[in-house]
């Protein structure tokens, strides 16, 4: 069983690593301190990956959503919203579990040994709602309503919060560009503080940014109950041993609710289930293959 669990984990890590590399394959950017300017940036990636990362070849959906919402000509982005609806309707938060580079980074940080890893705490579930607030306030409302004289709103989530932008874009670009170094100020310090908190938090708690902050995770979570790909628990096979809920680092009890908004479809519960009661489901057809 232990071997099977490890194989499953390693398989997912390799997909995550491969996808992070594909998403950031403009490697020369890291050497030159420049960002990719080609046509692929017309397309969004499913995960959170800053488009100002020197390696990024495509666009971050949350950055793009704010860029269009905040522009003076458009106050909504059908293109980016449509992309998010499409990905969400196909796979829900499977995108978080398998295709998000920032989710992967947090998982790697969680591997760092630390005496007191916190699995859950009082108020954990309530705090998960915060990500919907970040989505509505910082990604949608602020760029629409807080505008300059020409009606242009800033991407407030990127500007004030996003630690992925600081880690993937801010740090490498500022380190490599003298001109940028001369312009850093309080905002840069603030964002680096948030990044440090996120990094320390990720060593202690599994994916804290995904659980409490990420607006992209908030959007995809809403699709978990209706996506084409989902999980199904066969109640006849389930013997209520709780092995699945005990193994879940997102603190989901799939037996209670297979469509839980917090499930990132990582698959560890499915692998650990001794009776094979957890199955994939594409539309209403179930796959019994393990």
């Amino acid at each position: 069983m232990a071997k099977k669990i490890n194989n499953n984990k390693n398989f997912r890590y390799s997909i995550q690593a491969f996808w992070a590399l594909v998403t950031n394959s403009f490697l020369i950017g890291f050497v030159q301190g420049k960002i990719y300017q080609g046509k692929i940036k017309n397309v969004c990636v499913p995960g959170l990956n800053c488009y100002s990362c020197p390696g990024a070849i495509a666009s971050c959906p949350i950055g793009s959503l704010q860029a269009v919402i905040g522009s003076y000509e458009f106050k909504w982005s059908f293109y980016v919203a449509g992309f998010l609806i499409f990905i969400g309707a196909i796979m829900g938060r499977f995108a978080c579990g398998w295709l998000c580079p920032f989710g992967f980074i947090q998982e790697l940080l969680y591997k760092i040994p630390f005496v007191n890893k916190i699995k859950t705490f009082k108020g954990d579930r309530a705090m998960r709602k915060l990500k919907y607030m970040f989505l509505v306030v910082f990604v949608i409302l602020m760029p629409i309503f807080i505008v300059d004289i020409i009606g242009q709103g800033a991407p407030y989530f990127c500007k004030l919060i996003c630690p992925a932008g600081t880690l993937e874009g801010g740090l490498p670009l500022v380190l490599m560009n003298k001109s940028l170094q001369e312009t850093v100020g309080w905002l840069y310090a603030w964002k680096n503080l948030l990044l440090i908190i996120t990094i320390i938090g990720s060593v202690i708690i599994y994916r804290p940014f995904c659980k409490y902050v990420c607006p992209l995770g908030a959007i995809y979570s809403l699709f978990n109950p209706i996506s084409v790909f989902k999980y199904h628990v066969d109640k006849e096979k389930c013997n209520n041993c709780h092995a699945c809920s005990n193994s879940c680092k997102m603190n989901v009890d799939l037996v209670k609710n297979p469509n839980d908004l917090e499930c990132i479809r990582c698959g560890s519960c499915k692998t650990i289930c001794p009776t094979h009661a957890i199955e994939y489901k594409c539309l209403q057809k179930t796959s019994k293959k393990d």
Partner: protein
Amino acid sequence: MHIQERHINLISLLIVLIGVSSMVFGVFRGETPVMFEKAINICLECIGIG
């Protein structure tokens, strides 16, 4: 297949279709150049300067 299950399938597929149509509409409305412009220039807000 239960009628309820068939409904859920239809809803899922309908939402996929809504997503695709919304993307196409956004492209025709000319949203992509705005997004592209932002994505190919260093986003000062993202990196913590702007």
